[in-house]
C-alpha cells in the first residue's frame, strides 16, 4: 500500500507534458516494431488457426495508415471547421493520379527523369522522385481543394454536403473517361495507370544500409511501406495538432459554432473555410499518392463514394475534432473493412459450425456498428473536449443564440 502510494506520488511529480506524451510514445514504439513481433504473436496463437487471422497483417497495417491519414485530413474539414464534405474521395483520387502521371510510363515517349530512384533511365515517361511526388500530390490536391471550395463554400450545411457529394461522383467519372480528354489520353481510362515507381532512397543506401535503394530490392518491402506510412501519420498528426491550436484553428471553431458571429468578429469566412478545405485536401492527396505508390497502380474504380462515406464514418466514430479519436476510428474501421470482419466471421463459423460469407455483409455490419455507436456513445470513441461539452449542454449554438433579424 505504502509503496503504491509512493509510486503514485512520484508519478504526479512528473511534468504534465511528459505524462500526456507517454501513452502516445509507448503506442508509437509498439507500432514501429510491429513487423518484427507480428510473427511471434501469430505463432503463439498457432499460425494456421482461424484465431490467428484476427491479428492484423502488415499489409493491413499499411492500409490502416492510409485511412488514418485520410480520416485526420477529413477531420480538419468536418471536425474542426464543421463543413460536411461527402466528396472527400476526390482529393484522394487527385493525389493518386499525381503519382500515376509522374511515376509511370503513361506519357511516353516523353522521357523526363527528375531525381528518380530505382528507375532505369531507359524507361520512358515522367519519373519524378517519389518523395518529391508525395509533396507535389499534397499540393496538387490542396489546389484542387481550393478550386472546388471557391464556388461551393458559399453554401451552408446541407447544401454544401450535396454539392460535395456531386464532386465526389464527378471525379471518378472524369478519370474513367480520361483516356480521351479532347483527344488526349490523360488517365488511361478504366485500365488505370500502372506500374507506378516504388519508393526508395537511391544512393542513400550506400551510406546507411538500412534504407533500401528501392523498396522492391528488399524482401520485407511491405514493412518499409508500413514504416513510411507510420512516418506520414506522425507528420499528419503533428500538423493537425499545431493547426488546431493556431489562430486559424480558433477561427474554424468560431465558424463551426456561429458563422454570423464569427464574421462579425472579423473572421474572414471564405478564406478561413477555403483553408480548411485546402488543408483537408492536402492530407487526402498525400494518402492517395502513398496508397497508389504502395499498390503500384491507380484505377478509377478505387475512388467510389464508399470511401468518402467510410472516411466520414471514421471521423464520426472516432470523435469529431479529436485527433486521437479520429486515429482510432480510422484504424479500427479500416482494420474491420480489410481483415477484421472476415476473420471474425471465420471464427464465428468455426465455433458455431455455420457458413456465413461475412464479407458479403460488410456494409450491413458497418451500418449496424455505426447505429450502435451513435446510440451508446454518440460523442465517438475519444471525443474532443469541446464536443463533449456540446453534448452535455445539449445545445446547438444556433437554436439558443440565434436571433436572426
Amino acid at each position: 500500500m505504502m509503496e503504491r502510494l509512493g509510486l503514485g506520488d512520484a508519478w504526479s511529480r512528473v511534468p504534465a507534458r511528459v505524462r500526456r506524451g507517454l501513452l502516445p510514445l509507448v503506442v508509437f514504439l509498439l507500432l514501429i516494431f510491429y513487423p518484427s513481433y507480428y510473427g511471434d504473436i501469430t505463432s503463439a496463437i498457432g499460425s494456421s488457426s482461424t484465431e490467428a487471422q484476427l491479428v492484423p497483417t502488415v499489409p493491413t497495417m499499411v492500409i490502416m495508415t492510409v485511412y488514418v491519414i485520410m480520416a485526420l485530413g477529413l477531420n480538419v474539414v468536418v471536425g474542426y471547421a464543421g463543413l460536411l464534405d461527402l466528396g472527400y474521395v476526390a482529393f484522394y483520387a487527385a493525389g493518386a493520379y499525381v503519382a500515376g502521371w509522374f511515376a509511370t510510363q503513361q506519357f511516353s515517349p516523353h522521357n523526363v527523369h527528375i531525381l528518380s530512384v530505382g528507375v532505369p533511365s531507359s524507361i520512358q515517361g515522367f519519373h519524378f522522385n517519389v518523395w518529391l511526388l508525395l509533396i507535389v500530390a499534397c499540393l496538387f490536391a490542396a489546389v484542387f481543394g481550393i478550386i472546388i471550395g471557391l464556388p461551393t463554400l458559399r453554401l451552408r450545411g446541407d447544401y454544401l454536403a450535396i454539392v460535395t457529394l456531386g464532386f465526389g461522383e464527378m471525379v471518378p467519372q472524369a478519370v474513367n473517361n480520361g483516356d480521351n480528354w479532347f483527344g488526349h489520353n490523360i488517365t488511361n481510362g478504366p485500365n488505370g495507370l500502372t506500374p507506378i515507381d516504388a519508393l526508395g532512397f537511391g544512393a542513400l543506401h550506400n551510406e546507411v544500409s538500412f534504407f533500401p535503394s528501392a523498396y522492391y530490392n528488399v524482401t520485407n518491402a511491405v514493412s518499409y511501406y508500413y514504416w513510411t506510412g507510420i512516418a506520414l501519420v506522425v507528420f499528419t498528426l503533428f500538423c493537425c495538432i499545431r493547426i488546431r491550436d493556431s489562430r486559424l484553428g480558433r477561427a474554424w471553431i468560431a465558424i463551426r459554432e456561429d458563422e454570423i458571429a464569427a464574421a462579425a468578429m472579423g473572421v474572414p469566412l471564405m478564406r478561413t473555410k477555403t483553408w480548411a478545405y485546402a488543408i483537408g485536401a492536402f492530407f487526402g492527396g498525400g494518402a492517395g499518392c502513398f496508397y497508389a505508390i504502395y499498390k503500384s497502380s491507380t484505377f478509377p474504380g478505387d475512388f467510389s463514394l464508399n470511401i468518402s462515406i467510410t472516411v466520414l464514418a471514421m471521423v464520426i466514430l472516432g470523435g469529431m475534432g479529436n485527433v486521437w479519436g479520429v486515429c482510432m476510428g480510422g484504424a479500427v474501421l479500416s482494420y474491420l473493412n480489410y481483415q477484421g470482419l472476415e476473420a471474425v466471421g471465420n471464427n464465428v463459423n468455426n465455433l458455431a459450425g455455420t457458413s456465413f460469407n461475412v464479407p458479403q455483409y460488410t456494409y450491413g455490419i458497418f451500418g449496424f456498428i455505426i447505429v450502435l455507436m451513435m446510440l451508446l456513445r454518440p460523442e465517438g470513441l475519444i471525443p474532443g473536449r469541446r464536443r463533449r461539452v456540446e453534448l452535455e449542454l445539449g445545445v446547438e449554438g444556433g437554436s439558443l443564440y440565434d436571433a436572426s433579424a
Partner: protein
Amino acid sequence: MSTNGTPLLELEDVHTYYGTIEAIKGISLQVREGEVVTLIGANGAGKSTTLRSIQGINRPKRGRILFNGKDIVGHPPHEIVRLGISQSPEGRRLFPRMTVLENLEMGAFQRRDRSGVHQDVERVFGLFPRLAERRSQKAGTLSGGEQQMCAMGRALMARPKLLLLDEPSMGLAPVLVERIFEIVTEINSQGTTILLVEQNALMALDVATRGYVLETGVVALTDDATALRSNERVRKAYLGLT
C-alpha cells in the same frame, strides 16, 4: 465625452432587403465622433437590419454608408471590423462552447498586437468584474446578464472607433439594465463612439446624445435625446407616458 462634430458614420438613403422584402427603406442618419446615438422603434422597424447593414452582414441594395468619409458598402464584415466598427449583436451570439476569455480573444481576431490585446482583456475585466470571475467558464453556461457583458466586452476587444450595440437590455432584470447603461456611458466616456439600438427607449434616451425613431423601415423622427424625451408622439408610442 464631448463631441467634435465630424461625422464618423453617415448613412445616405440605405435600402436593405431580405429576399424580396424591403426591411429598411431609405434610411439616412449620422453619428458624430464621441456621440452616443440611439435608434429606437418597435419590433420590425429595421433597427437591427440597420446595424447589420453597417457591419456588412446584409448588403444594402441601394444607398451609401460612409465611415470616416469612405464608402464601405460591399466590404465584407471582417474588413469593416478592421476599419474600426464592431458589434455586440442582437441575441448576443456568443460562442457557447468557448470560455469567456476565448470569446474575448475572438473579439480581437483582427488584431496582431498581443500586448495590446492583453491590456484590453484587463480593461474589459475592469469594466465587468463579473467576467473576470468567470473567465474560464463556458460562455453557454453564463446567465443572461453575464452573457450580455461578455458580448459587449467581446465587441470592445476589437478596439473599435464605433461600437454598435444591439438591444443590450433585452431580457435582463431591471437592476441589470441600469448597470448595462451605466457601462455604456462609461465606455463612451473612455472615447468610443456608440450607436445603440434599443426597445427600452426611456433608458436609451437617457444615455444618448441624439436619437432616431424608426418606423417600418424609415426614420420617422430625429432630434436631441432630451427633445425626443419630451416629444408628445415619442412619449405616447415608446415611453408609455402621457
